[in-house]
């Protein structure tokens, strides 16, 4: 699973999650704009997909900060 450490593939997974979420939102909420279980699942998936690169980036920054403070 070394490929999972590659930032590009991590973002590829994030894109697939966001895309799957968007599809579920569309088919769940399109008829009247109201949200059922399918659309809510879609929102969770979409939000996870959009948040993933940010979370990974924040974790990386945190690791770098920690390593820097340990060096000092």
């Amino acid at each position, binding site marked *: 699973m070394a490929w999972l450490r*590659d*930032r*590009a*593939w991590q*973002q*590829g997974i*994030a*894109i697939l999650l*966001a*895309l799957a979420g*968007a599809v579920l*939102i*569309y088919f769940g*909420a*399109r*008829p*009247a*704009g*109201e*949200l059922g279980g399918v*659309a809510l699942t*879609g*929102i969770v998936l*979409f*939000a996870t*997909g*959009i*948040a993933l*690169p*940010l979370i990974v*980036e*924040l974790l990386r920054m945190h690791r770098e900060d920690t390593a820097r403070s340990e060096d000092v």
Partner: protein
Amino acid sequence: MTGADLPITLLLWLAAAAPLAAVFVLLVGLRWKASSAASVGYFLAAFIALLLFEASLGTVALQSVKGVWDALFIAYVIAPALLLYEISDEAGAFGAIRRGIEAITPNDLLHILAFGWVFPFFLQSITGFGAPIAVAAPLLLAMGLKPLWAVAIPIIGHAWGKTFGTLGVAWEALTQVADAADSLLAITVTGIMLVLADLLAGFTIAWLYGRWRGVREALPALLVVGVIHAAGQLAIAPIAPNLANVIPGTLALAAIIFLARRVYNQPSAVADSPLMRQGDPGTPVTGGGEPGPIPERSMPLGIAFGPYLILIGLILAVELIPFLNEPLSSVRFGLSFPSLATGYGIVTNATEAYSEFSPLTHPGTFLLVSSLIAFWYFRSRGYIGAGRVDEIAIDTVKTSIPTVMALFAFLPLALVLQGAGMVLELARGIAQVASGPVYALLSPVIGSLGGFLTGSALSSNILFGALQQQAAEALGLHPAFVLAAQTAGASIGASIAISTVLLGLGAVGAGSEQTGNAIRKMLPYAAVTILAIGLIAIIGVLVFPVGANGTGG
């Protein structure tokens, strides 16, 4: 989108501005990666929309889906553009293009003016959707420009072409949503504003290349091309807006070829231009900073340029030949969406086919077809080795992914801002507090905001055209000047939109983490041009006061 109940308050205005300000600070100020900055912006926009703008979760969610839909079709330009870049790079075509063009004229300054100003404007006159940048940026990289400048220069060079470009659709949209009171005056003023943006673009490119020495050397080209662009657009726009860019764009291409042979047949006197890569300029540098392969076989210019010639031929044929365009563009589809409303009465109308996708006339398809033909030809002639196919495919996918991820966050952010009424809040807030002349100065800022958010002058005109007309009438300003400033500002804003920059970075194989740096290079031009457009609008509204009948007096 009516929004009669939308309160205009400082708190709501600041809240509406917060997501964009956050993206801008993170991207340009703190140099965050585009996907991370857009992610922060998206969640902030969604949170504020739900909390302060009375948008329902359904509205936010479905507007986000619209954003994803839009992002998919920009991604459909980025990935094939990058594929074409990778194939050409692998075959050694960029080095061959550089050597071939140098045999015609060794003058780097003229190369940059030709491929960064004249050529992308010509392409914008016919097509759009980022195709001018997708084509021009890799060619400028091949000519020895640094990757970020290879993206920034054609964006600056083609910005002024967005109103009458793509056969004048943005102007047509403006005339449908707003009444300028005097359409001849409006189109003439628009032409003057855009011509100023054009001249500033040519000047900026020459100045960036070699400061005042570059400007002096570029002067013959700036004058000849500037006169052709200006006279062509000002003369043709009032008669046939859809041809206002095509004809001067074609004539300017012919003029630049003449200038290359007769005037610029010596190397540029400017040594060590900050735009150019040092060392061997014939070897493209990818976004990762690694040198591309050194071509072992010499390739004639016609073959090296072939993929781009095929691309240009496809664009011209499909866009300009009606018996090809009509059947091909009839194949189109879009998603249906219900009507969405916020608690403040911001209504996004139901649509049967949102943002229709026409696969057979989309630039992504032209790029894909050109890439496949190029691959087949280069592979069959041995320019690309058998073992390199997987590498080209993986490089294309891996470089595309971060760019597409940023689009997946940024376009839903823009659509949430629109659907929740936050964009309207920003524009109405400016209209409410600005006095007459100040509003005229700020009117291109509103247009550019719409363009920056949507990546499209057409969308900005649809979004803000009616609002600008109403604000002008309420403040006693001649709407012709305000609407001209709207569309001219929209053209500049759309050019430096994050989606356009991401597309350019993708086309030269550079990472999306460079988005902020690329925007920073274009900001001075955009700011000066928008200010100049605003000043013309001020002069116009002062010289042409509104008469008692509501039209120009």
